[in-house]
C-alpha cells in the first residue's frame, strides 16, 4: 500500500498539528492512491470516487486532533472513508449490509469439502484478464464482502486492522474475506 512507516506517519501527523501543511501534503501523497483504489471499487464511479477521496482528506485534516496515535493513520483514513461511503449509500437509499449478520447460514460454504467436479475456473485465464474479471465480479458481490476483499488484497490491510476498523472479531473478518473469494470464484465460473 505505502512505504511510509508508522513512526514517520506519526511524525507527519504531529507536524501537521503544529501547523505545517507540507507535512499533511506528504500524508495525502502517500495515501491518495490506496484510498482511491478502495473508494473507486466501492462506489464504481471515478468522479464520485475522486470527490470522496478528497473529502476523506478534508475530514481527516479537520479532525486530526481526534486521531489516536496508538492506531495506524492508514486504518483511521479507511475508517473515515468507509463511514463516508455508508452515509452516501444511506442517503441514496442503497441497501447496506451489516457485517455482523451472517450472509448465509454462517458461511457454511466454507466448511464444505471441495466438490469432486470442481472446475478450474481461475487458471484458465491469463493474469491480466483475470484481474479484469475480478474487478467485474467485485461489483456483483455484496458491498460488505467487497470492502473487506479490497482492503485485504488491493490495500494490503491486515485482518487485525480490518477488525479494528469494523469493530468485529478477527475470525469474523477472515471468514468474510474467504466468503468473498469463494463468491468471486463462483461468479467467474458463470461468466462467459
Amino acid at each position, binding site marked *: 500500500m505505502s512505504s511510509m512507516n508508522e513512526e514517520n506517519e506519526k511524525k507527519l501527523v504531529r507536524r501537521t498539528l503544529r501547523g505545517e501543511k507540507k507535512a499533511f501534503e506528504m500524508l495525502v501523497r502517500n495515501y*491518495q492512491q490506496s484510498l482511491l483504489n478502495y473508494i473507486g471499487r466501492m462506489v464504481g464511479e471515478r468522479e464520485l*470516487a475522486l470527490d470522496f477521496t478528497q473529502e476523506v482528506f478534508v475530514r481527516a485534516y*479537520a479532525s486530526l486532533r481526534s486521531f489516536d496515535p496508538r492506531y495506524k493513520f492508514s486504518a483511521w483514513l479507511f475508517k473515515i472513508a468507509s463511514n463516508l461511503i455508508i452515509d452516501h449509500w444511506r442517503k441514496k437509499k442503497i441497501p447496506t449490509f451489516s457485517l455482523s449478520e451472517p450472509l448465509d447460514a454462517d458461511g457454511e460454504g466454507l466448511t464444505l469439502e471441495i466438490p469432486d467436479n*470442481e472446475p478450474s475456473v481461475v487458471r484458465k485465464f491469463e493474469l491480466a484478464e*483475470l484481474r479484469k474479471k*475480478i474487478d467485474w465480479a467485485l461489483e456483483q458481490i455484496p458491498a460488505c464482502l467487497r470492502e473487506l476483499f479490497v482492503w485485504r488484497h488491493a490495500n494490503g490491510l491486515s485482518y487485525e486492522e480490518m477488525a479494528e476498523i469494523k469493530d468485529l472479531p478477527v475470525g469474523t473478518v477472515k471468514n468474510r*474475506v474467504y466468503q468473498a*473469494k469463494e463468491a468471486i470464484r463462483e461468479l467467474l465460473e458463470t461468466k462467459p
Partner: protein
Amino acid sequence: MTCLKIADIYAYLEEDLSPGQKEKIERHIDACPRCREAIEERKFLSEAASSLPDLDIPADFTARVMAKIAPAKRHLSVWLIAFTAGLSSLALLLTLVVIPGEGNLPTLWTSLSHALWGYAKNAAVLMARLITVFSVAGKVLSSLFHPISKGLSLLTSLISPGVQIFIMTLTLVLLITLFYVLRKKFMMGEKT
C-alpha cells in the same frame, strides 16, 4: 486424512495454521491431486487479486486536496479558558492589592485595593484565631509580605500607570502563549 474443507485451504494459504496442522495438510495434498488443484486455483486467484491495477489519479489531485483543506482548527478547551480567566483575575487582583501606591493608579483602584486588603487581613485574623499554627505562619508571612509590598509600591510609584498596565498585559500574553505552546506539545494522544 479426508479431503480439505474450503476454510482449511484459505487457512493454509494464509499460513494461519499450527505447524502440526500445516504438516498434516501438506501430507494430504501430496497424495490428493484434487485438493492440490483446489489450492493452486485459490492461490492464483489471491495473487491476481493482490495485483489489481491502480485506478487513474489526476496529476494535480494532491494540489486540489491541499487547496480545499481549511486551516487546522484550534479548539480552546473549557479548562484552558477557565485557566486563562483565572490567571487574568489573579493578575487584576494583584494589581489592585499589591500595587496600591498613591497617585500611581486611578482612585477607584486604590480604594478597591484597600477594601480587598482589609478583607484579606480580617480573613487572616479569623483563621489565626481558629488555628494557632496557621496564626503563627500567617504572622510570619505577613511580616515578610509587608516589606515586599512596600518595595513593590515604591517600585510602581516610579512607573506611570500606563506602563504598569502595559507590563501587566505583556506578562499575561506571555504566560498564555507559554501555556498554549506547552499544551500543544502534550496534546497528542486523544482518542480516535
